[in-house]
């Protein structure tokens, strides 16, 4: 790791190499093997439909986030467009009634230019995403469909 300029810090590297070694040595690997095999036998592979059902909460979160963003957009637009200062009536958005083109139009409506940020799926949950990141995620999902 000389290229990191950290080779001089032997203490840190030594500690990093030792970290967890004792606990790992105490792991009973054969017992782990048997436990894993038992679980693989007892828990049948999840069929595709069940996997879809498992992932549904994520889609529900996305839909909920979309409704919130769309609602906020509609409210903001209504307030801006009412000359007298009175807020225009807000229509309820029901995504299940919308067609794919309508959903795309909705996404374009809520999209704010110049605020896209790269989103990594590795270490964030939906609750960790900013509104801009959520919009980017939704746009990428739309492109996949």
């Amino acid at each position, binding site marked *: 790791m000389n290229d990191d300029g*950290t080779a001089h810090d032997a*203490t840190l590297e030594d500690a990093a190499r030792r970290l967890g070694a004792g*606990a790992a040595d105490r792991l009973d690997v054969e017992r*782990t093997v048997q436990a*894993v095999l038992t679980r*693989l036998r007892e828990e049948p592979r999840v069929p595709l439909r069940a996997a879809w059902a498992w992932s549904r909460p994520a889609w529900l979160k996305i839909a909920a986030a979309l409704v919130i963003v769309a609602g906020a957009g509609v409210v903001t637009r209504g307030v801006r467009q009412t000359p007298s200062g009175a807020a225009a009536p807000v229509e309820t958005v029901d995504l299940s009634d919308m067609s794919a083109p309508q959903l795309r139009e909705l996404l374009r409506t809520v999209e704010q230019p110049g605020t896209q940020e790269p989103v990594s799926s590795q270490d964030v949950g939906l609750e960790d995403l900013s509104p801009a990141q959520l919009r980017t995620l939704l746009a990428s999902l739309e492109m996949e469909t």
Partner: protein
Amino acid sequence: MPPAEPVAAVPSPTDAALIAAWQGGDEQAAAELVRRHARALARFLAGAGAPEEDLDDLVQETFIRAFRAVGSFRGQCRFRTWLLTIGGNVLKDAHRRAKRSRVVPLGDDVRSTDGDPHERAVAAEAEKRLGDGLRRLPRLQREVFLLRAQQGLEYDEIAAALGTTPGAARVHYHHAVKRLKEYVK
């Protein structure tokens, strides 16, 4: 009687071959993959803050998830690296469930009676501070640091596993080292 021919060492099957065998229904292939990678996975999880009493369960859960999802493994990195990233997700889920942080117990290596007592104490203190420091890092920095410093992986491999670029992985590592030095020195 002709001289006996030297017995050629039978090469152990690659991870890819074992994965293919497991997908074909060979249970022993799965067992061999567990034997091959369980300790490295346990080290990674312990380094990332897994309590030792939960280590066996976390290792099992990681392998179960990996075997269930192995069809999505495209060989973008080594199987072990992919497994470690799944372990990181398993640990994150476990922490969310626990809703509380726990202290990583010191291993026997730290409590070892070998060597100079002063050096042992210094090493133990450094390891404890490193563990404390790792728990304070953002998850990505912590995982990049462990994959690099503990597992000895190259940035290309880390980046492929974490879905980022080698340059970004290098930056995460440097940020992690900078912060960890504050704890360890």
